[in-house]
């Protein structure tokens, strides 16, 4: 599913013009991005939590050249699905389990 399909479904469910649905998706995602970039986590009840984790600098290797280098400190986002989402997803495995 892409952004455009998401907009189409929201448009059908809420009766919002497609262009507007697209703009609103943009605003939702942008608001979450700005919050995460400030280092704050985003907790959406029923969906999941986006957390910001700090990684300390560490030594690594360039896998192509084998050269040793310092991997700088960085911030990464982790997503933890809510129990509701987890069980929604898990439940479907009976159809595909061989």
């Amino acid at each position, binding site marked *: 599913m892409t952004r455009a399909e998401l907009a189409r479904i929201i448009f059908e469910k809420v009766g919002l013009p497609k262009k507007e649905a697209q703009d609103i998706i943009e605003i939702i995602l942008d608001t979450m*991005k700005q919050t*995460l970039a400030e280092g704050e986590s985003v*907790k959406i009840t029923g969906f999941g939590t*986006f957390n910001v984790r700090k990684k300390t600098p560490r030594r690594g290797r360039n896998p192509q050249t084998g050269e040793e280098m310092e991997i700088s400190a960085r*911030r990464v*986002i982790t*997503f933890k*699905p809510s129990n509701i989402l987890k069980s929604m997803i898990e439940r479907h*495995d009976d159809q595909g389990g061989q």
Partner: protein
Amino acid sequence: MTRSELIEKVSERLEGFTLKQAEIIVETFFETLSEALSRGEKVELRGFGNFRIKTRNPRKARNPKTGQAVEVPGKRVVYFRTGKELRDLMNSKDG
């Protein structure tokens, strides 16, 4: 930031919508994402990130207390990968 704070922020940025309408839209957004994922669909939100479903195969394991062999059923789990734009944004400011 919580869901209701997100709704507030979004409604401040939306012209001509009430808080209640913003709430319905934000809820529909996450509901639609959840439904797509539970159908096993991948969701690609360019600039933000991708959600995809990974299948864990059934496996044999042991109950560590009793040593008894048990069959762990396969399951599906959701996995999020941050998009490039957001990844860059996370590391553009000193944090």
